[in-house]
């Protein structure tokens, strides 16, 4: 059997979801039997060297680089999964959505009580820097997302079960306790 190709990325997230992937513990050895990783922080591939079967996205989009990266993933992955609260709903970074971007930047670089060294009022506008979006958006508002795995972070078992089901083509078991949060 050909190994499925998996790619992962953390956009506007905290890498907590990736930590949760690692939390599958020794099953990662089983996983390695089933898949190979391509572009991912796991193996530090910076670019896709071949098309991936499954792309896993942690975090939403808060800047232009996130958007570019996400679109890059969509072009190169057959199936794209939003992993965790930030990818699905924007999460913690999206808390700034209620505040105009200008106000956020002013507070961070000009007026904030801890801004002391930036006396000349330099703003981050170097062309190497990603540009910040006016609001943080979830991944499915930018590209088509096929599956959503909720949680903050999603439990390792959930990630494992979902990946296992996808790779083996079985239906995922979703018992009541897993979907009932209230």
């Amino acid at each position, binding site marked *: 059997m050909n190994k499925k190709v998996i790619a992962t990325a953390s956009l506007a997230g905290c890498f907590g979801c990736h930590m949760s992937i690692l939390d599958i513990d020794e099953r990662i050895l089983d996983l390695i039997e089933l898949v190979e990783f391509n572009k991912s922080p796991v193996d530090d591939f910076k670019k896709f060297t071949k098309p991936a079967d499954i792309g896993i996205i942690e975090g939403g989009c808060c800047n232009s*680089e996130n958007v570019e990266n996400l679109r*890059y993933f969509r072009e190169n992955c057959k199936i794209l999964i939003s992993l965790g609260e930030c990818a699905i709903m924007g999460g913690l970074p999206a808390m700034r959505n209620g505040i*105009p971007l*200008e106000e956020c930047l002013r507070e961070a670089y000009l007026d904030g009580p801890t801004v002391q060294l930036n006396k000349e009022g330099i703003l981050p*506008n170097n*062309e190497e820097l990603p*540009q910040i979006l*006016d609001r943080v958006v979830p991944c499915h508002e930018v*590209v088509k997302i096929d599956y959503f795995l909720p949680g903050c972070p999603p439990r390792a078992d959930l990630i494992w079960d979902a990946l296992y089901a996808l790779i083996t083509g079985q239906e995922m078991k979703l018992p009541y306790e897993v979907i009932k949060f*209230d």
Partner: protein
Amino acid sequence: MIEKSQITQILQNYKNDRYRLMDILLDLHKIQNYADTETISYLAAALKMSRVEIEETISFYHFFSMEPKGKYNIYLTDSITANMKNRKGILETFEHECDTKINSVSSDGTFGLFTTSCIGMNDQEPAAIINDVVFTNLTAYRVRELVKGMRNGLNLEDLMYENYGDGNNADLDVRSMVCNNIRKKSIILKKDYKPYTFVKSGIKKFTPAEVVQEIENSNLRGRGGAGFPTGLKWRFGSQSQGEHRVIICNADEGEPGTFKDRVLLTEYPEMMFEGMVAAAYATGSDIGVLYLRYEYTYLVRFLNRILDSMRKQGYLGKNIGGVEGFNFDIRIQLGAGAYVCGEESALIESMEGKRGEPRDKPPFPVEKGYLGYPTIVNNVETLVTAVKILHFGAKWYSEFGTNDSLGTKLLSISGDCKFPGIYEVEWGTPLTEVMEMCGADDVQAIQVGGPSGMMVSLKDLSHLNSTQLMKWYKPSGMEVAERFIDRRLSYSDLPTGGSIMIFNNQRDLLGEVVMNFMEFFIEESCGSCSTCRNMPYVMKTKLKKILDGHGVKSDIEDLLSWGKTLKASRCGLGQTAGNPILSSIFNFRHLYEKHIQSLTEYDTDFDLEKSVQSYQKFVQKEPVLFHMK
């Protein structure tokens, strides 16, 4: 603030009982049309409650307020039939004439203008409640006339038409312009029964167990919509242990498009109360409450008069009907505007002065209900029917209807038909016949059972096999079999609490009707379960996306699968809140597909260039975007 002496007086009337908070607040709102902070603090201290407990009750109900309202408060109904009859124009006229916007009070404090869910006048829309007086069949001209009259300080009653409505609507204690519009009578509405005959002479012929048995034999099922067997409910209630037992008549009739209970309350109140007495006798209850929706306040004086006369004649009180030790009395509990209070456990919460949030079940009300006592909650029509069954016998009753649905059903028919009103039909009547009855010859869709029911077409669906039908989601937990093939009113095919709304071919089913229903559920959700609090909103937004032409194929599938998550809600409101969309997808899928983009799988309005504009402007950066490739 309201005078302390007045508050104290009201509190004394209810013996400082926190479980009568609804009545206390209703009485306070009569003195001053809102509850100010000092009054709330005073109440909290006197009732030994926290301020928040009182505030959460106030904020739950449409007709309570913590903000000052107007001298005249106009509640304009937002039911779909009102919207079909130019509610928009009426609203604009009100806004213009009263010089205020919807859901606000005019600057001079004269007029408060508010929107409210269906007020049970669907056959005479557009309607509004102004300071508890119902005005029906509004036109722009009438609105101008009304507002002018109110500005000139005329009595609201003088502003009604010269003629009152038919029947008891013209009673001195009702004096309302509401009309009954009874169009078809059958065994229940037929006046072949002299009220109180059962209590006076029949009751002695039965033991309580025999009454329960007789109702069980008749297979009477709850007429409020859920269809729980009444006899079984009475049996459970009589078997539960408690210091007291409680009979509640549910007259909260909040399902949009339903108004048959209003007509029963107006024309058959004696039989309804008698039904409560019979239920009390059967179950050994001593406390009786009629929970009346606030919208029907205009009937309170009249209903209380009937109760008084029953007490005088010995049909309420001690040793009723000459049965030693059978003591039972009824009081009227007004609601304050909340659809979910029609759900029996929410109704009980509301009666206890709390927010009308449904309880977790079990325990069911028949085990632990009002104040923890076993409580039997029955719909108005159920109780009226029970009296007739007890008088004429279960055998007589079972001659009508179909096997699984015996007897008859009162229908409240409204919408695009010549003769909206009340029709009593036998269960099993085909929908086509109902349409002929009410003079509806241009029918695109029929909403059976209100927004929580189903939107159906008269179109024959027999080309679908049962597997295809079974794939569809199950409404109210009832089995879907081949029942979509022959559309008949019955518990196994088209169950209904009585609401039938008809839409002709000119109506925009999705944009006009389904949207209105979804907004209704969003407005009326109590917010307790996350599914019901969020999903109707998300589904409505998705529908809007489709109607705006941004929908893709998977959006329809999303709606269908999301609808299933609503089943996790605690009560019927949440569980059925997706039905307007689900049933319209099932029966009118072509309307959705018309708007769907067939060539693309994904659509978004996200635009990277636009999204970084404010950043570029602020940091003064040239609009060059970083590209990965």
